[in-house]
């Protein structure tokens, strides 16, 4: 089974702190994604990566950055956390190309609270 893990289920940080959210997948997937999930808004794409050291902005990249130094690991960084970044963060991965790339596999999510 595909397994996508995230470093924390719950995280509480203070305004202005630098926050790292890590995601690891064990299925050798090329694509990795970071989403933000808010009630009534569904999932919104923050960043995605289709290869090591490659990254593309999604719909809401402001205030976030990412790092992909190894194929299996994709990190989301909040440079200076703000209260409006309080949310559930979901990581996902998928294969690159062909029909197999259509299914995304998700981690359990990190519920981040910024106070």
């Amino acid at each position, binding site marked *: 089974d595909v397994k*996508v893990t995230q470093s924390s289920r719950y995280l509480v940080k203070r305004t202005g702190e630098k926050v790292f959210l890590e995601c690891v997948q064990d299925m050798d997937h090329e*694509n990795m994604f970071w989403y933000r999930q808010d009630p*009534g*808004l*569904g*999932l*919104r*794409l923050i960043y*995605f990566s289709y290869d090591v050291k490659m990254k593309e902005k*999604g719909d809401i990249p402001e205030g976030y950055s990412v790092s992909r130094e190894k194929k299996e690991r994709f990190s989301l960084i909040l440079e200076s956390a703000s209260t409006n970044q309080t949310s559930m963060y*979901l990581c*996902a991965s*998928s294969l690159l190309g062909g029909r197999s*790339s*259509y*299914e*995304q596999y*998700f*981690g*359990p*999510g990190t519920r981040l609270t910024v106070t």
Partner: protein
Amino acid sequence: AQTVTQSQPEMSVQEAETVTLSCTYDTSESNYYLFWYKQPPSRQMILVIRQEAYKQQNATENRFSVNFQKAAKSFSLKISDSQLGDTAMYFCAFMSSNYQLIWGAGTKLIIKP
């Protein structure tokens, strides 16, 4: 811009009943994929069912089936013989040629015993 709309924020039905969740989308593309994902309480999001737009036949997966109306840009999910384990948030999603997913706001489905 492509959009996905789920007009039912919350639904509840009795166990064993059939329930239909609605989804409409907007796109100018002709080739695309549509998905229903399920997010159980405190558990990971998983794929329920997938439909390829060029296929006229509606996708089915056991108790889950879709009603895909391409001209109307409608993609509803039917759950037959609903079970307590079907309680979850259900998200409709659209994938275009760039492989990125565009998500609806979700429908919270509660199955009552």
